[in-house]
Each structure stands twice: as structure tokens, then as C-alpha cells.
């Protein structure tokens, strides 16, 4: 049902401006799945559900709806690869749909700016669209099974919660991402507190970095305990957190304990679809991905 569909690709901030390798992998992989991505020209920050929503909700809502209005004008649903942006758009849409006063306020702001917004647009996550394609269809496309690869799946928070405003069948103990990882031939390894936050959100990484990194450390320690080859995420902000925290933790510790390669889902899938690591930006990581590639290409 998703095949042949065009989406307005919302980049956000962290993906294009800090981890363009994720953007590269999404742009490479999605067309292979029959999904066309169109640039969402002139889009801004979602804006960030942590800092900006915490500072002024009316600003957060109006800027979020502006980005959605750009997609509506383009005639497509919006697609994002960041849980934070996804959360912003899902919550902003719910806000204007359930609260006519909020909708009116936003439209009042838009009037002089000549922005039209009716609300006939939806926001989807990259992984939601891949999930809709289905494991069976995806399985048929696998050319290079990633056998023997042990993966720690990290869902993140805003992809799943609040569950009342999310499309998933389950409200907790989700398995869809584990299943999507396993169609590549890799194994999703059980580890403690799999559904725990990465610690970056809510402005905590920006404002209280020691607490933020300590939350990431807890997850990383649990992953090390489970002896995984890499972690797989679906959020550019979680990705930043795990990529940036590991060198920081090693520096504090004085030894290189934290070296878990941080792989975005479309990079993992791309490898299984037979693409080359460079096409997926795997040579541009902070934490070296070579041990993962060695295992796959052994």
C-alpha cells in the first residue's frame, strides 16, 4: 500500500546538519522500496519538542504547522526519520484537530504570511512506512543476509509514546522494529531496559549534559553486557546521543570501553539489500563501523 507513494521528506536539524550519512542512507534505500521522496523546500526545525516547546508552546505549534502546511501544499504526507520531529508533528496535528481555538490561533498567524493549512495532511515516520511495506515484501528483496550479526534494537521514546496518538498495535513491549531488523538476517538480542530513553530529549542533553550522558551510559552498559555487534536506531537525535556520548565516556574513563557502532535502520537494511557501505554513509561514523562490516563481509 505504501509502494508507489510520494512523501515530502522532512529533514529536521540533526540529520542534514550533523549526520548527513543517515540522510544519504534514507535517500538511497527508500526509492529501492518503491517510496519516492520529494524535498520539502523551505522547511525549518520541526521545532524541537524539548527546548522550543518548553519555551513557548504557541511558537512551537505555529512553526510545526507551517512545516506541515508546506507538505500539504505539495500534496503529500510528510515523512521524517527523527523521533523528536515525529513527536512534534503528531502532537501538533492532534492539538489543532482536537482544539479549534488552537487551529484558529495558528491560522490567524498564517493569514498575513499567506500560508494555507486545512489539516488534510499526515506525518509519518520512515520506519512506519517501511513497516507498512511488510516483512514479507521486504524479505523478498534481501540479497545479502546479515547472518551472525547481533543487534541491540533501540526504539527511542517519541516513536512509541504517547501511545494514544501513535499507529502501533501494541502500547508497550513493541516488537515491530525487532522484526524489521530480523528480516535482514541479523539477530535482535535481548538486553536490559530495551525501551529506556537515550537521555537526549527534553533539553536534557543541551542543559544537563552529565545527566543525559549517564542515561546513555546505562543503555550502553546493558548492550555491552548482552555482547552485541552494534545498535540500531531510527532517530537522528538518539543517534547523535549514542555517537557523541561514547567518545566522551571513553575520555572520562581513560580507556576505550564504549565502541558500539551506531547504525541507523536504513543503513542496516541497505546492506541487506546489497548496497555498498559507502553508498549508505557507513564510512562517516563517529564510532568506527568497520567491525560490523568485517562481520558481514567475512
Amino acid at each position, binding site marked *: 500500500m505504501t509502494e508507489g507513494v510520494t512523501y515530502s521528506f522532512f*529533514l529536521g536539524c540533526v540529520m542534514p*546538519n550533523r549526520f548527513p550519512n543517515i540522510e544519504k542512507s534514507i535517500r538511497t534505500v527508500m526509492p529501492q522500496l518503491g517510496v519516492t521522496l520529494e524535498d520539502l523546500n523551505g*522547511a525549518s526545525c520541526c*521545532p524541537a519538542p524539548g527546548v522550543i516547546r518548553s*519555551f513557548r508552546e504557541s*511558537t512551537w505549534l505555529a512553526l510545526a504547522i507551517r512545516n506541515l502546511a508546506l507538505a500539504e501544499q505539495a500534496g503529500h504526507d510528510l515523512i521524517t526519520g527523527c523521533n523528536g520531529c515525529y513527536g512534534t508533528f503528531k502532537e501538533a496535528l492532534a492539538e489543532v484537530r482536537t482544539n479549534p481555538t488552537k487551529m484558529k490561533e495558528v491560522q490567524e498567524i498564517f493569514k498575513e504570511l499567506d500560508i494555507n493549512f486545512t489539516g488534510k495532511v499526515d506525518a509519518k515516520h520512515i520506519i512506519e512506512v517501511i513497516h507498512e511495506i511488510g516483512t514479507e515484501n521486504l524479505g523478498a528483496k534481501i540479497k545479502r543476509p546479515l547472518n551472525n550479526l547481533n543487534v541491540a534494537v533501540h526504539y527511542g*521514546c517519541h516513536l512509541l*509514546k504517547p501511545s494514544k496518538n501513535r499507529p502501533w498495535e501494541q502500547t508497550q513491549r513493541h516488537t515491530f522494529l525487532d522484526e524489521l531488523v530480523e528480516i535482514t538476517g541479523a539477530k535482535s538480542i535481548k538486553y536490559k531496559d530495551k525501551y529506556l530513553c537515550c537521555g537526549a530529549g527534553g533539553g536534557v542533553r543541551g542543559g544537563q549534559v552529565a545527566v543525559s550522558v549517564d542515561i546513555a551510559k546505562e543503555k550502553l552498559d546493558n548492550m555491552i553486557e548482552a555482547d552485541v555487534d552494534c545498535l540500531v536506531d531510527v532517530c537522528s537525535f538518539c543517534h547523535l546521543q549514542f555517537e557523541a556520548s561514547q567518545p566522551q565516556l571513553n575520555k572520562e574513563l581513560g580507556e576505550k570501553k564504549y565502541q558500539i557502532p551506531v547504525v541507523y535502520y536504513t543503513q542496516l537494511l541497505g546492506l541487506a539489500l546489497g548496497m555498498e557501505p559507502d553508498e549508505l554513509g557507513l564510512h562517516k561514523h563517529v564510532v568506527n563501523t568497520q567491525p560490523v562490516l568485517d562481520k558481514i563481509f567475512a
Partner: protein
Amino acid sequence: MNDRISRETIATDDIDPEFVDALVEAGADRIRTCIQCGTCSSVCPSGRRTAFRTRELMRKALLGLKDEVLSSPDLWLCATCLTCLERCPRQIKVTDVIIKMRNMAVDEGYMLPQHRKASQKLIESGHAVPLDEANREMRKDLGLKEVPPTTHDDSKALEETREIMRKTGFVRLIEGQEKEAT
């Protein structure tokens, strides 16, 4: 009785009865149903490693201890993971309550410098995390457009987002009255 111990641990003057009303009006409609069970604190990843207690925050809000709540640095320890909101047996949208408290705190002038900086970047570039030189290079190396097709590449779009930020009072909030007037 030891008279040196103050019995008035909560000063009457510190109680603002309108504080909860303001939170309810802002959309935290179920906060009054809180039974102080502590589920929120028990699932909080920040609370595992700091003195941050979500339950305490909720209780103080209900007592009307506005200044104590809004000036508390703990208010900024919530990573908005939404687990408390998901688990609250009274279905209080705990995370939303915290966001609303933060909005009020910022209006009172409580703002972490790093957060102000990210907000300034949003005003300058349309992005809280803007493009830098190293990433321009990486984009080129990867065969992507050097400047992404966002407000970074569209001055009209950037001006539009700034106008929204001016109209909603964000520019004044971040840069202060003096700066906006110039």
C-alpha cells in the same frame, strides 16, 4: 518540643492558589486527580540518577508552591520520555504538565543559557542545530547538496519562520525587549 524546629515548613505566603488553576487552564486538566502513588517517579530515567522526583513536582504544584516549582532546576531534568504519562494510573498527562510549567518558568525569566543559545540559533537560521563547515564538507563527500533544501537554502522561508517567531513573542522572549526594538 524543640522550638528551634520550624513547624511552618510550607509558608502560607508561598502558596499561590491560582497556580493549579493556571496549569489546568493550560490543558493539564487531570492534575487534581493525582493520588501521589509515585508511579511517575519510579519509571523516570532522570530520577534514577538525580534527586529529581516527578511526584514531588506534582505535589508542590497542587499545593500552589508556584515560585518553588518554577525556579527549580529539577524542572529541566525531564527528558520527556513520556513513560510517566503512559503509566500514570490517573491518566494525568504528566509530561505535558511539566512542559506547561516550563513555559511558565521561562516567562518568569528562568532559562538555562544553553537553551537560550539553541533558541537564538533557531531565530538566526530556522534551525536549533544549524549547518556548520565540517558538515558542509561531509554532505559534499556523500554526494548530497552542500546546503540542505531547508531554511538554510531559502531566505524567504527563513524570514517567514522569523515572522512567526516574532508574532508569537518568541523573539522577545529570547532576545529581550531592547534588542527587538532596534
